[in-house]
């Protein structure tokens, strides 16, 4: 049965407990908020060690060139400079996610503007900056490949001649400048299109986007009290950062430690490693601690942003509004290194059904090396690009059919048990409920087709996987009966540590104030994939749930011994362990802890290890490396816009979002995630784009890379559908990325409705819209 919790404007802390939960389902205040509002939190940029050196990087200023010579003599002669490192000082081994194609510093050639040529460590940042200017590099410029068409041309030079030899986690199809290609199909698209009444085809483009967390990257590498290399950093992936750091330096993982500091936003920009290997190299080289931090300008040049995609899409349908086929070709500009573009290109492929039943499908994806910036990934991970194209094109199809866009969608929705092109099966499908809720809340049926002049309304659906690979957690009982969680799960601002504490508190039957979460470090934690991929509540939450249940069982066992009964006769709740049939006969958790420590059995530690992601038994074929995702979250957005047809400016008047979340463990935190993701989505739909020409980012600053300000954001009407998921902790799914998938197509569809022109590129800048309107008028 569906229960729809309709949420109007957010008005503060709202209690939404189900009768059976004490803390889960409550909008408790986040455990990290007080430190953040008083300025006490220490972020990666606030971490200082006495006597530490300061490092700056010399970036390549050209997209493709052979390095003929590097003369660092003047830099080294500058008083206060302690070291200059170049590719000669860095290990030869390549490392990386998906494909191991990266090196710490460029060797022999630079392949993008922003490639790392050298780094300086000096006694102050000012001296390090001066020293960087004094390094003289002689380049021999080569003809760069500045877009994917050039890189795909048959005679294009190979940017990675050793591509076939790179280690990888999966045997990707690779050739020329294609670092990954995959293809999946179902049915027979050719005959399906032939039998369709309407076939529409278009090419869509999405812009290069910067994650732009307000906290720039920074880290400190030094040595702990035993002289062991240690790196303090803000990361979304503690364990992955640790493994990659060791791999990059040619060390075993035990020879280096990573400590996670407070993180001022990630959004996919603080994955695996970024500055850490280079910073650690300088620490090794100088024997001193070193701080390496990026300016905002360097954030644009040196970051791994969301790659621009080109998506050609062809959809077919019969007159009655039934979808027949889709043919999609995805090309992702990977830039100089593969980084996460392989993952996003693949995930675009696996997301290409959207929320619809396509009887026949043919989808191909390629990630292509160019001499453009080293793109990576951002919230939305490939799904965002293909969902934009698919959802925008569904409206084009609807128009061609003469059917309302929402009707067309309702007519073709996925249902429980359907198999996607990726061979994952969907379950707990609530797309129809999110559609009905969003349509009702927005007043869509009254507005569609009768908006005032220059106003438009647009709908978009979305779905994203939830659950990826594995997580672990320990919880132990302190002597005073409070519980301490140790986990590699990092708090990047989404509320993860608060949600994990709520889960633990609920299972153990103790107040939230009696649960602590450790500052994650790699020594004391087992593997966790990270705060990415909308997985923290589902995967980390499950690991904590398992650990808490394990601890609860051990508490019951210890209490049973102390109380002289069977373990099955003991309940653990309200801060006590007691005989269920005689509650007065019990002990406080403090007493249980004391008994375990001083009496018998030993300290009580609960352990949880979790992985709900499965690999396919048989290869799916076509170079496709993804497995079976545990679950999926669905959503629907409706946007209303007003345009100025003379200038092309767009105002978002109203925005409605409904998401299928399973269970909101902390409703206020969940709502905040939805509102924030929508803001990022709106930014990428209207204002944000890294403009790249000749391989250079032309707008590496916050004046011309335009984040939405408070004046630009509409009030968002958020509602949720909460039907417990089969697998998630307390029925929770995930939400981190789902809402960012909506604004691109919802706003595109609304603007197209308002302007009467078709739109095939985001961001819809005023100039692009005005140009499209003027062209259509001719």
């Amino acid at each position: 049965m569906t229960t729809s919790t309709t949420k109007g404007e957010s008005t503060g802390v709202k209690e939404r407990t189900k009768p059976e939960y004490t803390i889960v389902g409550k909008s408790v205040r986040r455990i990290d908020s007080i430190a953040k509002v008083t300025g006490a939190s220490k972020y990666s940029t606030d971490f200082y060690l006495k006597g530490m050196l300061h490092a700056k990087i010399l970036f390549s200023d050209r997209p493709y060139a052979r390095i003929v010579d590097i003369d660092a003599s003047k830099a080294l002669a500058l008083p206060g400079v302690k070291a200059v490192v170049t590719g000669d000082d860095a290990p030869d081994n390549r490392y990386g996610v998906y494909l191991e194609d990266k090196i710490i510093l460029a060797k022999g050639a630079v392949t993008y503007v922003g490639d790392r040529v050298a780094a300086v460590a000096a006694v102050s940042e000012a001296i390090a900056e001066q020293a960087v200017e004094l390094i003289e590099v002689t380049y021999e410029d080569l003809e760069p490949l500045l877009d994917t068409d050039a890189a795909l041309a048959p005679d294009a030079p190979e940017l990675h001649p050793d591509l076939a030899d790179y280690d990888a986690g999966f045997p990707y199809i690779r050739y020329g400048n294609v670092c990954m290609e995959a293809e999946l199909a179902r049915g027979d698209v050719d005959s399906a299109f032939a039998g369709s009444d309407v076939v529409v085809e278009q090419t869509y483009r999405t812009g290069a986007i910067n994650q732009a967390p307000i906290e720039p990257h920074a880290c400190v590498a030094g040595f702990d009290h035993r002289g062991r290399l240690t790196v303090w950093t803000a990361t979304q992936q503690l364990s992955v950062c640790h493994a990659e750091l060791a791999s990059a330096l040619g060390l075993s993982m035990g020879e280096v430690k990573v400590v996670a500091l407070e993180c001022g936003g990630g959004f996919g920009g603080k994955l695996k490693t970024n500055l850490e290997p280079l910073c650690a190299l300088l620490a090794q080289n100088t024997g001193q601690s070193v701080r390496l931090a990026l300016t905002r300008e360097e954030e644009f040049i040196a970051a791994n942003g969301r790659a621009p995609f080109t998506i050609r899409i062809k959809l077919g349908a019969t007159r009655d509004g039934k979808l027949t086929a889709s043919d999609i070709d995805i090309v992702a500009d990977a830039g100089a290194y593969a980084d996460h573009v392989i993952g996003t290109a693949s995930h675009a492929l696996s997301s290409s059904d959207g929320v619809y039943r396509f009887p026949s499908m043919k989808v191909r994806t390629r990630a292509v090396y160019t001499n453009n910036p080293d793109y990576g990934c951002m919230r939305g991970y490939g799904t965002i690009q293909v969902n934009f194209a698919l959802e925008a094109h569904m409206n084009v199809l609807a128009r061609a059919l003469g059917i309302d866009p929402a009707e067309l969608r309702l007519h073709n929705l996925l249902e429980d048990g359907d198999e996607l092109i990726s061979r994952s099966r969907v379950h707990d499908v609530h797309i129809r409920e999110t559609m009905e809720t969003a349509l009702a809340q927005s007043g869509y049926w009254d507005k569609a087709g009768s908006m005032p002049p220059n106003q438009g309304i647009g709908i978009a659906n979305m779905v994203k996987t939830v659950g990826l690979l594995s997580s672990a957690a320990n919880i132990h009982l302190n002597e005073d009966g409070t519980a301490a969680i140790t986990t590699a799960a990092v708090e990047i601002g989404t509320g993860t540590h608060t949600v994990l504490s709520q889960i633990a508190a609920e299972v153990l039957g103790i107040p939230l104030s009696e649960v602590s979460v450790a500052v994650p470090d790699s020594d004391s934690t087992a593997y966790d994939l990270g705060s990415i991929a909308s997985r923290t509540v589902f995967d980390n939450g499950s690991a904590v749930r398992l650990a808490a249940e394990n601890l609860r069982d051990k508490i019951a066992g210890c209490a049973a011994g102390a109380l002289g009964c069977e373990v099955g006769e003991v309940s653990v709740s309200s801060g006590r362990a007691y005989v269920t049939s005689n509650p007065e006969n019990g002990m406080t958790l403090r007493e249980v802890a004391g008994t375990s420590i001083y009496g018998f059995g030993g300290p009580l530690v609960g352990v949880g290890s979790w992985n709900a992601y499965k690999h396919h038994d048989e290869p799916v074929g076509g170079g496709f490396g993804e497995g079976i995702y545990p679950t999926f979250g669905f959503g629907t957005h409706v946007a209303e816009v007003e345009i100025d047809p003379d200038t092309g400016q767009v105002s978002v008047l109203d925005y409605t979002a409904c998401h299928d979340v399973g269970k909101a463990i902390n409703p206020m935190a969940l709502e905040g995630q939805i509102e924030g993701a929508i803001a990022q989505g709106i930014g990428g739909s209207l204002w944000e784009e890294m403009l790249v020409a000749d391989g250079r980012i032309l707008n590496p600053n916050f004046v011309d890379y335009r984040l939405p300000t408070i004046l630009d954001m509409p009030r968002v009407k958020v509602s949720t559908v909460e039907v417990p998921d089969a697998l998630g902790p307390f029925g929770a799914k995930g939400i981190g990325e789902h809402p960012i998938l909506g604004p691109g197509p919802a706003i595109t569809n609304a603007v197209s409705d308002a302007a009467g022109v078709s739109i095939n590129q985001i961001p819809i800048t005023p100039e692009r819209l005005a140009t499209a309107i003027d062209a259509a008028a001719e």
Partner: protein
Amino acid sequence: MASILEVICPTDIEAVLPILGDSERNPRVIAGGTDLLLQYQHQDGPDLTVIDITGVRGLGEIVEAEDGLRIGAAVCLADIVGSETIAHRIPVLVEGAVVVAGPQIRNLATIGGNVCNASPSADTITPLLVLDAEAQIRSAAGSRVVSLRDFFVGPGQTVLEPGELLESLLIPWPAPGTEAAYTKLSPRRAMDLAVVGVAVALWQAGSGIQTRIGLGAVAPTPLRATVAEDVVNGAVVIDLDLAAEAGAAAAAAVSPISDVRGSAGYRRTMVERLVTRLLLELSERVTKARTP
């Protein structure tokens, strides 16, 4: 890479001028600092002596005089926005000042700094041009007055000679019944630089309608579109055709560049449309005000 050797904070203009005239010290005036501090490090050259004029007596005042409003160079944009006098008598200047960046910047940035930085897209300059403002310039040698129309010679370049300081701006009181407005075309509602800026002032004189049209971000300097003004001046009424003709004349008179914020073609088209739009809007306001 230039650096700052010395920071001096005088309280009297007589203390400023000798330092400003001493070229050996490479003096630079700082008021709000919101442009200088972003620019000086990218400039090659000798190290600077920076003179902070925000504490100089008289430079931070707004004075109503008989011939007009005198605004000291060090008056910050927030104070312009908050001035009842300016809101009441020269509201178009508020329209320009209030769209500069955000509130924190406006608490630092000054009108003198915005004018002397001489960016073609500066939001206070375009309104000042249609207000026919005058720059009062001081040096150790004396003072001179330059019409703002003649003040700018190139992007970031003014007629100020070494040793000269912009002391104040004089804005003649607008003719009775003047309606004026400033439109800043930008993608976001705050924090952007203008892609195109258009200011128009309109009033009824004995000889017919009079107008001044100022344009920003479409030429090496902010400018008055005098050819477009000539189309309108003396007209009895502004109808759509006349407004469109003036818009076209304004568009023909500009030389925009293509850059990250917009193409030349788009800017030119926007000049035409926004000038037309503002002329019609203001003409309606003038008519309404005159009709009892």
